[in-house]
């Protein structure tokens, strides 16, 4: 497949170095040498049934995300080799997880990737934002850890991977513990389900409704929050309902490809804020501020 080598170098600060695909590409090539780069998966969605032999007509999308990989190795360098149509999502995914990534794309995607990189570059810095999670997965070296983290990412169970128990989170998941025995972890779905049950949906920092193809990441400070929304479907999604814990007044949406879009149906109630993203393609970011 003919391809164009592009790179985006993303630093672990809020405004990463996002470099466009033409003209400045040589500079970006310096960000990572191919031999040092780990291959990232092609992000997207496949549609399948909910299990072999199912009698249900329900068809659940299977999201292929690199989130798990990036969370387990945040300082890593990655290379995407992408078929047509995937470049904007891959760029946004790398941006959201703040990793160094290089994209090898189909030539037809060059302009679209240009647009996404320009969009990402315009996202303003918000001082003090830190990744918000309330689950820690302790990396015990168990072979099941990658898939456990993958399932948590896909279900928007916000987590980080740690080497020792993290007292700051609501739930530590240690494979091999009484709650998560090694034998039971052979089924990572059961681990993710149990983690969700133990945490409870009410305590989850963030929920996404109305779609099964959008994965979110949350960053917070004392007075603000930023929610990144990645849509792994190749179609736009409408009516994405977001619930984030915390009471926020000022909510601003920037949706790639939907200039001027605004959140709708805001509800601030109990311990959470809810709003709807009316439509989004590969990526949207929502900035929230608390009232004075």
């Amino acid at each position, binding site marked *: 497949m003919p391809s164009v080598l592009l790179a985006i170098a993303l630093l672990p600060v809020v405004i990463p170095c996002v470099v466009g695909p033409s003209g400045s590409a040589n500079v970006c090539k310096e960000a990572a040498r191919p031999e040092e780069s780990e291959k990232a998966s092609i992000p997207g969605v496949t549609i399948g049934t909910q299990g072999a032999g199912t*009698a249900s007509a329900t068809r659940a999308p299977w999201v292929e995300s690199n989130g798990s990989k990036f969370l387990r190795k945040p300082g890593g360098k990655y290379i995407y080799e992408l078929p047509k149509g995937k470049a904007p999502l891959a760029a946004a995914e790398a941006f959201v997880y703040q990793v160094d990534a290089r994209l090898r794309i189909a030539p037809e995607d060059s302009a679209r990737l240009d647009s996404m990189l320009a969009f990402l570059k315009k996202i303003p810095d918000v001082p003090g934002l830190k990744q918000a999670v309330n689950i820690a997965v302790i990396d015990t070296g168990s072979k099941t850890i990658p898939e456990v983290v993958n399932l948590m990412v896909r*279900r928007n169970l916000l987590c980080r991977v740690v080497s020792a128990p993290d007292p700051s989170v609501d739930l530590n998941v240690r494979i091999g513990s009484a709650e998560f025995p090694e034998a039971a972890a052979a089924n990572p779905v059961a681990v993710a*389900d149990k983690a969700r049950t133990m945490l409870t949906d009410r305590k989850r920092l963030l929920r996404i*409704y*109305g779609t099964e193809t959008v994965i979110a990441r949350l960053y917070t400070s004392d007075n603000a929050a930023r929610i990144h929304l990645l849509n792994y479907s190749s179609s736009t999604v409408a*009516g994405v309902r977001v619930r984030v814990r915390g009471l926020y007044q000022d909510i601003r949406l920037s949706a790639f490809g939907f200039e001027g879009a605004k959140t709708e*149906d805001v509800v601030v109630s109990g311990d959470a804020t809810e709003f709807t993203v009316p439509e989004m393609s590969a990526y949207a970011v929502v900035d929230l501020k608390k009232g004075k």
Partner: protein
Amino acid sequence: MSAGAVAAGATENAIPEYEAVTAFKPEPNPGMPGPYRGQVVSVHAEKCIDPQSETVDAPTVKEMISRGMRSLTGAKADADAWRKFIAPSDIVGIKANCSGAPGAMSTPAVIAEIARNLVAIGVKPENIYVWERSQLPRAGYDKYLPAGVQLHNAGRALDPKTYVECNFFGEENTRSNMVALITQKLTKIINVPNMKDHGASGVTGCLKNIAYGSFGNVARSHRDVKTHTLSFIGALAAVEPIRSRTVLSIMDGIRGVWHGGPFSPSRKFRFYPKELMFGTDPVAMDRLLLDVIDNKRKAEGAVSVWHHDMKYVQPGEGYADDPNIDRFLREPGHIEYAAKKYGLGVYDIKKIKVKRIEI
């Protein structure tokens, strides 16, 4: 089917926890079970449909509706009967059932006659909406309805603030949101199910039509052989404003489905009760429907909708051709559950007053 699935289906009988979120308050006299609690009028007309050609006789349907409505209300004139439920200022939704279209659905002649009666009492045609979740284009109602009546395929036009939240099987999207048309426009609803067997709920009558037809993301209540229709149907039907605004039900039994529902995969499973039921009590009407469907199944040598025997349950499409294959362990008990848990009507057959009219 795997043994694991059998075990799961046979043991997962706990009722899920439901959280209904709505800003709408119930009316002092909610539409369901309404003023005719425990009462049903059944009108049968032999010539309403020709079973061979499935041609519907519209004048007979008109007479069936006239007789049924006047009998239910005690009114002498059609207009007076309809005015018991609907005012000229109302914005009226007619909830059709088209999931089996074009083979089986709420009959166009019935839907059109209801709309004509609404227009006759002064409801503006543009304030009448025939709606369905997604299958409306297959039904072809536009060729029958009075000019100006609107067709509304709800699709994803859902109300983000009115929903039922429940985690059935660990799915991530745990909300079923109400169709926005209901919360944002309609002031009254006329529920028009048609008489059908249903692979998950046993039968699909008034309750199933208004419940699953008024919310999105409801198919998540079925997985493998297990379905939560036992409790979910009542939980949805009781949410305001549906409960208050659904003021009349007309069950269409001109043509029915005795197996394979809610779809109509094969004409061999269609039958012709040639009956319309009228009432405000969805439980009472559905209780009668249970007998209609189960008696027909028995007459055809098919297993009862009440069976809970795994030997009749099979994944895949086998159900579409064999009346002794089901996709799920059916839950016809949803009707009694809705009566007991939510007070949606009278389930005891001995306490249901049925007035039968023959044309």
